[in-house]
C-alpha cells in the first residue's frame, strides 16, 4: 500500500459559497506535502476534504474526485468512517476531549479498533505517542488529570499524540505548530520526518521556513479577492517553489519571508 492521493477537479462548497475551485493535485506516497497561502484562501477547507471531514459541516459538499491509491473517497459506497480511520487529522484549534483524562485522550482512537488492548500495551503506546509529540515529560505525572487543564501548546501536542497513536496511513496536519515553541516545533518536525518513512503527511503551515524545512513538495493556494474561491496556484518541489517559482504570485508570497 503506497498511500498516494490524487485529487481531480475538486470544487469545495459551503452551501452555495464556492470556497475552493478546481483543484487537481497528486500527492506522493511517503512524502511530506506543505500547503501554504494567505489566510482564508481555503487551505483548511481543502485539507478537510482529503479525509471527508468537510461534509461534517452542515451544507458543506464537494464536487470532483479524491483518490486514495486509486480508490475514490467520494464513491457512494465508501463509508467516511473507513476513510477517516486511514487518514488521520490534527486540527488548527486544539480539541482534546475535556471529559477524558490525558491518557484516555491519547488512547481514544486506539480503543475504537482494539478495545481489549492490554494495560501494558496501552501504557507503552501512550508513552510512545506522547514522546513523539514531545509532551511526555510535561504530563507523565498527571496522566489521569483532565486534558483541559493544559496550556495551549500542550493541548495541541496532546492532539498530535492522539492522532499518531492510531498510526493512520496518511496524516493531515492543520498548522500543528502554530501554538508551539521552537523546541516543540523542532520535535514535531522530527516526528514528521520519521513518519514520512511509512506514512504520507500533508501539512498546512504559515511558516515558510517550516515548509522549506520539512516538505518535499509545496502547494501554493491563493484567492483572487473577497468572495472569490481559493485556487491552487502552483504545486511543485519545495525547492522549486521557494527558489524559482513559475508564477509571479507565488514568488511574491514566498519572498516576503516572515513567519
Amino acid at each position, binding site marked *: 500500500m503506497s498511500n498516494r492521493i490524487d485529487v481531480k477537479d475538486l470544487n469545495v462548497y459551503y452551501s452555495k459559497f464556492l470556497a475552493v475551485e478546481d483543484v487537481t493535485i497528486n500527492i506522493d506516497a511517503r512524502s511530506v506535502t506543505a500547503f501554504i497561502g494567505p489566510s482564508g484562501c481555503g487551505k483548511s477547507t481543502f485539507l478537510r476534504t482529503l*479525509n471527508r*471531514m468537510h461534509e*461534517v459541516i*452542515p451544507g458543506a459538499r464537494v464536487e470532483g474526485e479524491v483518490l486514495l491509491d486509486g480508490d475514490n473517497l467520494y464513491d457512494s459506497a465508501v463509508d*467516511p*468512517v*473507513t*476513510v*477517516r*480511520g*486511514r487518514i*488521520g*487529522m490534527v*486540527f488548527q*484549534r486544539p*480539541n*482534546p*476531549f*475535556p*471529559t*477524558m*483524562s490525558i491518557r484516555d485522550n491519547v488512547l*481514544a*482512537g486506539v480503543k*475504537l*479498533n482494539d478495545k481489549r488492548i492490554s494495560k501494558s500495551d496501552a501504557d507503552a503506546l501512550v508513552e510512545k505517542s506522547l514522546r513523539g509529540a514531545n509532551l511526555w515529560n510535561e504530563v507523565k505525572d498527571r496522566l489521569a*488529570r*483532565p486534558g*483541559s487543564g493544559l496550556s495551549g501548546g500542550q493541548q495541541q501536542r496532546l*492532539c498530535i499524540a*492522539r*492522532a499518531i497513536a*492510531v498510526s*493512520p496511513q496518511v496524516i493531515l496536519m492543520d498548522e500543528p505548530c502554530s501554538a508551539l515553541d521552537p523546541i516543540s516545533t523542532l520535535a514535531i518536525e522530527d516526528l514528521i520526518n520519521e513518519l514520512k518513512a511509512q506514512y504520507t503527511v500533508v501539512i498546512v503551515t504559515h511558516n515558510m521556513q517550516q515548509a522549506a524545512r520539512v516538505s518535499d513538495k509545496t502547494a501554493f493556494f491563493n484567492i483572487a479577492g473577497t468572495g472569490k474561491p481559493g485556487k491552487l496556484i502552483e504545486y511543485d518541489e519545495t525547492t522549486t517553489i521557494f527558489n524559482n517559482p513559475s508564477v509571479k504570485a507565488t514568488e511574491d508570497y514566498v519572498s516576503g519571508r516572515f513567519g
Partner: protein
Amino acid sequence: METGRDRPPFTAGTSSDVPSSARTPGRHCIRNDRLEGKDVSTNSLKEPTDRGRAGDKIFSGVSLAAGVLILAVLFSVAVFLLVQAAPTFTADPTEITGGEGFAAYIVPIIIGTVIAATIALVIATPIAIAVALFISHYAPRRLARAFGYVIDLLAAIPSVIYGAWGYIVLAPQLATVYAWLAENLGWIPIFTGPASQTGKTMLTVGIVLAVMVIPIITSLSREIFLQTPSLHEEAALAMGATRWEMVRMAVLPFARPGIISATMLGLGRALGETMAVALVLSPGALVASLVKTGNQTIAAEIALNFPEAFGLRLNELIAAGLVLFVITLIVNMIARFIITRHKEFSGAN
C-alpha cells in the same frame, strides 16, 4: 474604559494626525474629573468608572435574592407540611387509617410510589435520550426541528387527558397483554395472576407516567446535545469514529450532568403526578404483581381522599405529602452525588 469614546481610536493608516494625549480635550476632561475625585493622591484605579459597578451589585444582589426567595418558599412549604402533618405523628395508632399507625399506612404507598416512578423512569429515560439523540444527531436536519416540536407537545397535554387516555384507550388494550403475561409468565413474581380485567394496574400507570416524562427528559437533553462543541465532535469523527462512537465519546460525556438533571426533573414529575395516576390506577393493597389490581401512590392517595378528608385524615394526607418530599430529597441527594463526583471532567471550558 470611559475614554473609549472621547479618545480618537488609534489610526491605522496615518499616524501623523494622532494628537498627543495631553492636548486632547477629551482626555483633559477626564484628568479633571480624576483630580476632583475624593482621593486624588491614591490609586486612580479605585475611582468608580461608571454606574456599572452599582449595576453589578444590583444584579448579583437580585440574583441572590431570587435564590434566597426560593429557599424561603421551600422553607415555608416545609413548615406548612410539618405543622399540618404533626397531629398524625402524635395520634393514637388506632385513629390512623388502617388502624395500625402511620407507618403501616404509609409504607405500602411509599413502595407503590417508588415502583411507579421506577417503572416510568426505566422506560422513559433510554427512550427519551434516544429520541433526543434522534433529533439532535440522527434525523435529517429539517425534519428534526419539526419532530422536536411535536415531542415537546406531549408535555403540554394536561394530566387529566393522560388519565382519561390511560383508562379509556390504553388500559383496555393492555388488559389482554396482561392476561397473556399472567398466563405464560405468571411464575415471575411481577406477572403473577390473576391479571386485572380492566388493565388499570401499576404497570399501566408506569407506562402512562413514562409517556408524560419522556418530553421533559427529551427536551432538555436535546438542547444540551445540540450544544456539544463541534470541535469535539469533529475530533472524534476525524479519528475514524462511527456516529455512535462519536456520540459516546463527545456528546454523551458532555451532556451527562444535563441528562441527570433532566432525568431528575422527570423523576419529580413521576413522583408527584396526581391526576393521571388517580384516574388510571385501580388502587389497593400492596402487591408484587404489576398486572394485578392493587398498589397505590402517595400523590394519588392524596388526590383521591383529599376532597372528603377532614380532621385527622387531612393531617394524615399532608403527612403523606411530607413523606413524598423526603423521598424526593433522598433521590436527589444520590443524583447530585453522582454528578459532583465527576465534576472535574465536566464539559465547560
